[in-house]
Every structure is written in structure tokens, then in C-alpha cells.
């Protein structure tokens, strides 16, 4: 089910799915800004709890933009609010006694020499990895459901570049198939994985956006990490 296509009745299920797939980019973004792993975990939990309580998915619509960007905006607002509330609580009241500029603080953090990769880039990168992993898991599950897990496990290496893949003869010997049959199976596996990626990317991108462009954005976010 598409995370962004969910209506009110199915939003809880959609959110479960969403948390299962994309919790890590959220956690990584928060963790980059929070010294303690426990605090980051608590904040991640709190973010998703608030997301459920406020039924934020009801506001999600493909024509409003990329779901990835929407989630990041929500997360930023959540963290900014959380920051204000923390300070207010410490001072024993709901009055705003200090003018905290969270955006400025974030900019300053990003300029720290020890952090060459910004939290946003980490978020984008981890989102792309999660999407690729999700599609991979989906295809793997499909093979398993048809009793062909061994074929997937042997052939998945061919989803990567040719340079690192063994000769087809090797896979053919391992699977007891002809080389031609392996070639055909690899071709189908690549095509199925392409479809899974396209579906996954399409679920979270804005209406009428170019899928090709979205895939290139994902590739760029992966290139940001060295």
C-alpha cells in the first residue's frame, strides 16, 4: 500500500508500514543533532506518536509534493517545537523567555568542521537506501513465496554492476540450470527489481513529477556519501 495514498480509514496501517520502512532516516536525522542515542530514540518515538495523534497522513496528498520532503518538514517542526517546550519546561512555565533561533542553531551545527555531511544529506541518503532495501526485500519475499529463495539469493549479485558479478556459468552450476536459463532469470530479476523501485519511488513522489528525475535525485543523494 502506498504511504501517501492512504485515506483516513487505513492511515493507521499505512503509518505502521511507514514506520517500518522509513524510521531509520528519521532517527539518523535526529541522532545527528542529538548527542545521546537514548534521547534520539525517544524523540523518534515521540515524533511518530505525534504523527499518529495529529493524523498527519490525512494531510498528505501527492499533488502537494514529495512525501520525503513533507516528512522532513514535519520532523523539523517537531524538533523545533520540542526544543521550545524543553526550555519552557525547565523554566517552569509556558512563557517564552528566550528567543531561540533553531534554524540558526542548525546552520551553525552544519558548519562545524567535524560534520562534513549535513543532517539533511544523511536523511536523503538514508531514505534512498531504505527505499532500495525495501524494494529488494519485496522482490526477495516474492521469490520466497514461490519457493525460489535460493534462486534469488544466488542471482541477486547480478542486480549490481557487471564488474563484481561472477560469470553466469558459476551461477548456472550452483543452481543446476543452463547458462541460458540463468541469463533469462537474471534479466527477469533485474526487470522485477526495476519495477519494485519505480513503484516504491512513485509512492512517495509528487503527482506529475518525473520518475526519471526522482531516481536521479535518489542517486545524487547516494553520491553525497563517500
Amino acid at each position, binding site marked *: 500500500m502506498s504511504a501517501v495514498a492512504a485515506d483516513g480509514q487505513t492511515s493507521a496501517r499505512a503509518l505502521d508500514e511507514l514506520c517500518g520502512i522509513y524510521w531509520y532516516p528519521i532517527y*539518523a536525522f535526529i541522532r545527528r543533532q542529538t548527542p545521546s542515542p537514548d534521547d534520539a530514540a525517544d524523540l523518534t518515538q515521540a515524533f511518530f506518536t505525534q504523527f499518529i495523534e495529529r493524523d498527519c497522513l490525512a494531510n498528505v496528498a501527492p499533488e502537494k509534493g514529495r512525501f520525503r520532503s513533507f516528512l522532513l518538514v514535519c520532523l523539523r517542526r517537531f524538533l523545533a517545537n520540542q526544543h521550545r517546550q524543553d526550555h519552557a519546561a525547565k523554566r517552569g512555565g509556558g512563557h517564552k523567555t528566550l528567543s531561540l533561533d533553531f534554524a540558526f542553531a542548525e546552520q551553525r551545527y552544519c558548519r562545524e568542521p567535524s560534520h562534513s555531511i549535513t543532517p539533511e544529506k544523511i536523511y536523503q541518503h538514508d531514505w*534512498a537506501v531504505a527505499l532500495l532495501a525495501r524494494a*529488494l526485500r519485496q522482490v526477495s519475499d516474492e521469490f520466497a513465496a514461490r519457493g525460489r529463495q535460493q534462486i534469488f539469493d544466488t542471482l541477486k549479485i547480478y542486480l549490481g554492476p557487471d564488474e563484481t558479478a561472477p560469470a553466469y556459468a558459476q551461477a548456472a552450476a550452483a543452481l543446476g540450470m543452463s547458462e541460458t536459463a540463468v541469463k533469462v532469470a537474471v534479466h527477469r530479476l533485474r526487470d522485477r527489481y526495476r519495477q519494485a523501485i519505480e513503484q516504491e519511488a512513485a509512492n512517495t513522489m509528487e503527482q506529475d513529477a518525473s520518475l526519471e528525475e526522482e531516481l536521479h535525485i535518489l542517486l545524487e543523494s547516494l553520491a553525497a556519501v563517500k
Partner: protein
Amino acid sequence: MISPPQHHPCPRCGYPLAADSITMGLCPRCLLTRVLDVRKNMQMQLDRIRPWPDAPSPQVLQAAMPGLEVLELIARGGMGLIYRARQKDLQRDVALKILPIDALQDATIPARFQTEARILAGLNHPNIVRAIEAGQTPDWLYLVMELVHGPSLREVMKREGKLHPRHALTIAAQISSALTYAHARQIIHRDIKPENILLDPGDRPTDADLDAFFASGGRVRLADFGIAKSLHHPVQDMTLTGPDQLFGTADYIAPECRQAGHAPSPASDLYALGVVLYEMLTGRIPAGHFPLPSRVAPVSRKLDAIILCCLAADPSERYASADQLHHQITKALAHRPAPRVLLLGTLALLAVAAWVVTFFGSSHPRTAPTTLPVISAPSAPQPKEESPTTHPSMFVLMPGDTVHVKWGDQWYDATVVRREGRRVLVHFDGWSNSFDQWVGSDRVKW
């Protein structure tokens, strides 16, 4: 985590891959690159089979063009339909390219078609497909051209995968020769890509492999000047394309041509040819963080330098002309690594000679560079009489040039990889080791 405690670089792209990655040990960057490749291949197949609306039958065309016997539809180009036809008077096969006027969505296409005809008619080069005749009927614009019986480079690459470096260089040399000719006449092709490079076997069989193709005099031909631009008629062409209109095929478009308002130049053709050369050698497009050809194919670092120069983001850092590129390619093509046995024999002789000189003394005592490993033949150090120079030619040093570099009091042969200001990155190629080294330009000479 972004930097997992245990990770190793992907052998292809260097991505830091975690041992316990959620992508099942597969590199995410390569996974996505593969998906994009698969999509691209699919698109190409679709483009090939997608029918042109209302493609006229050969009989209908023939009735409108009595001088021709139109035989069959053979291809669908970006700028029209291509038929195989026969000139009745000369009894020779030709390619007939037509553009059905009614089917045109874009009012600029007829003018572009005529531009192509005009440009092709003015070009006569062995590596460019020749135009024979152009005209217009009430329903179609048409262009009669030489018929090339061979496959396109794209088809050859699909069949053979990566090309042998010698074949790739031969193809690139012939295309750079065609570009030298066209650029000298102020014509920029603007759509250099494997689909527009045809392998013409002449009268010989078309299914021969590339060794046989070149051995029997096969020629590479540059086709489809449909979006070519004549620098002789800039004003007229501006009205055809508009200053911000982007032409070409995405992967082969030079970075500067992606910017609005930037006029194409011969350098953009050289960029595209660099992409084609890279693709021939490695089987992939040089997009994003691409590996050097020598990392993924058995080619020399000199070829890396040639390709990197073509792919420079700044057009002023590319070769100054197609002729200069042609010169570098032919030089690389002429380079034949000496047989290993011969090299070993030469090394042994040099070692003996060095021992004799050391043992019996020499009027020119030498000190081996302390930080440089020994560079041996065929790039053996050759003492030179000249001193380092700031010769004017220094300022036109280009990647791929073979130069002499002073190290200690000795001169060594090396290849220029890159130049930055007054520093030059040179590549030393020895028997036992090869490495790059930055040196001051005052230590480099021709």
C-alpha cells in the same frame, strides 16, 4: 548509521558498504545505477519499435517520387522516417529520409530538416554520410542520402559489450576526423551518440566482427545532422531553435549546453565524443562519480587523460579543437606496448649496464630519486642536455601529452594527466610500478 564501524568500499564506485547493510550486501549506488541502465535500455527498445503515426507505405512514396523505387521502411530517426530506396537511373541503393508535413507538431522541424539537407550537401568527407538530393512534395520533405549497410555503433555495443580499446580508438579517431572537417566549416553536429555513428562495411559482408571489419577497410560514418548548427548563420538558427532550447541526447549533452542561453560550440561535440569513447571502453555512461576507464578496462592511463580532457566541465579545459583530439587519439592508437619478453630482456641489459657503470666508475655519477620508485624502460630515464624551461608551449600542455619531467638531476618520460595553474600532474609508467605525481611546470618540457 552513515559511517558504520565495519565497511568496505564498493569495488566499482567506492561507496562505503557496511558489512551488515540492509541492502543484502549490495552497493545501493550500483543497484540504482543498474536500475537506471535497465530503464534506459527499455526506453531505447520502445523508441525503436514505436511506429511513426501514419508512416506512408513504399508504394505511396514511390508515386510521389518517380525517380525512386522505394523498397522498405528501415528506421525511425528523431527527425523522420528512413526508407531503403533505389535510384532508378543509377541503379544504386540509397537512404530516403522523409518528414510527413501533416504529422508535424513542431513548426520548427521543417526548417531544421532543410538545415540538415543544406549542411549535409556542403560536406564531403569519408567519415560523414553524404547527401545526394533534397526536396519537398505536397505531403513530405525528403532527403536522399548514401545508404550505409552496416549497423550503428549502438547495435555493435549491444552485441559486443565493451569494445576492444583498439577498436574504440579507431572509431573515435574516425569520428574526430569527421568533426575536424565539419568544425573547420563552422558546423557543429550537436548530437554525437552511438546511434548516429554507423559502421559502413562497404561492399563486404556486414556480420563480420570488428577485427575483420577494420582489416577489410570498413569505415565509420557520422550520420544525422538533423540538429546540427551552422555557425555561419547564427541569426537564422536562433530563430529555428530558440536560445534556450535544449537539443541533443541527455547523456551526451555537455554541461554548459544544459544551461539556458548557452550557445553550443565545437567543444560540446568533443564532450559528447568523450562520452561515446568512455562508453565504448567501459560499457557505461560516465555519470556521477564514474570510475576511470583504466580501472574497469584494460586501457592505459593515457586514455584516461584523453577522456577526462574531453569530459572537462569547463569547455575551455577540453581539447582546443577536434584536430587536437584526433592527434591524441591517433598517438594513443599508434602506441604499442612492447612484448613482455622484450621488455624483460631490455631490463636485464640495463641492469647489467648500470652495474658496469657503477663498478667501473662514471664521469656522471647519478643519484636515484629518493621518493620515486625506479622508472624503467620503455620509459627509461634519458639524460637530457637541456635545462628546465618555461617554453611557451608549456601553456598548451594537454592531458595525454608525453613530456620529459626532471626529477633530481635526471629527466624521465611521463604523461600529462592534468594541469592546474603552474602545477602539472604527470603519470610515470614503469615496469614494476606506475604512479601519478604533481610537479612544478618548470620541471616539465616537451
